[in-house]
């Protein structure tokens, strides 16, 4: 359940950045290859925001797809899991996207 720690860090960073304003929405990128479960994060987000300037805020989750390039044949492929096999049989992959865990923006009132 590291999602609770992640949610608390999101709220901490966001409330500090908001400078005392009330936060209505936090947009967060959680790539599909990131070791964070969106459902668990949403659940923890409500706990982490309670009693803060972000209480009641919407957590907008954006989920960049997993993309990788095969080191053997240089082709690009989609990854749904943090590993995969290229059509050429290659398993040595460079990740291009999908491992994001980033606060994109806040909406404050």
């Amino acid at each position, binding site marked *: 359940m590291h999602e609770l720690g992640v949610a608390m860090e999101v709220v901490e960073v966001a409330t500090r950045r908001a400078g005392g304003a009330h936060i209505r929405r936090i947009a967060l990128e959680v790539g599909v290859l990131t070791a964070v479960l969106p459902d668990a994060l949403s659940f923890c987000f409500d706990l982490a925001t309670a009693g803060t300037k972000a209480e009641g805020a919407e957590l907008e989750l954006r989920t960049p797809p997993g993309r990788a390039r095969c080191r053997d044949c240089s082709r690009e492929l989609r990854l749904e899991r*943090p590993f995969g096999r290229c059509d050429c049989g290659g398993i040595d992959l460079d990740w291009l996207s999908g491992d994001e865990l980033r606060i*994109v923006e*806040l909406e404050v009132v």
Partner: protein
Amino acid sequence: MCATCGCGIDHEHSLDELHDHSGGHEHDHDHDHDHGDHDHGHESADSVDGRIITLEQDVLRRNDHLAQHNREWLSRRGLVAVNFVSSPGSGKTSLLENVIRRDEGRGRIAVIQGDQATDRDAERVRAAGARAVQLNTGTGCHLDAQMVARALEELAPEPGTLVAIENIGNLVCPALFDLGEQARLALMSVPEGADKPLKYPYMFRGASLVVLNKIDLLPHVEFDVGFFRDCLRQVNPDVSCLEVSATRGDGLSELMEWLAALCAPASAEGETA
């Protein structure tokens, strides 16, 4: 002054202080303060564009930053830290005990022991001959860079020491948190099943070395080493894997060599610094 980021905090004495610069920074301009890897969280709300504040900030940046300070703290002293990760019961503590005994009391190994509760494991590695600091995380499921910073100060290892950080027994959460270690050693044991790297890919993907422990049990359990190595290759194609029995001693010489090779450049750096 911190050489990594020039942030002005004297890490010799206050490694565990968070870099909370938000209080004293006022800026008159309206752009976002992104300094690449080392944005220190100038979290004033002066970049409000309408009601949207753009951050584009990694959630774990604060931990990553502190980890980088730990790494710098270690390297300045000619120290190497290895983060030992595994499920509960894979044999991290047994492996450490035996590595320490092979070190023959030369005191070159010190241990930061992470558990949710009790100092039983710290007692075990002390009994084997190493200095140890126990970290209890309570309900926490992983160690983070700040906890390790405090433990390093308390441990105050001599130059040339190998600092073994035994993480919480958990194959999921510790994968996300850089502690400032130079290498991450992922341990698993044969009774856990050969497909474990595919089930817990993050931990194995981040490993610098994988140790397959309890190989003395191979005759008694169904475990296909070839299949295991194939699973491991899929998540981490380049990683080396040592087959070890911590209790019987198989593979420990190779592990000692790997650890010694890791320590050699750091010792040289520490001596010349």
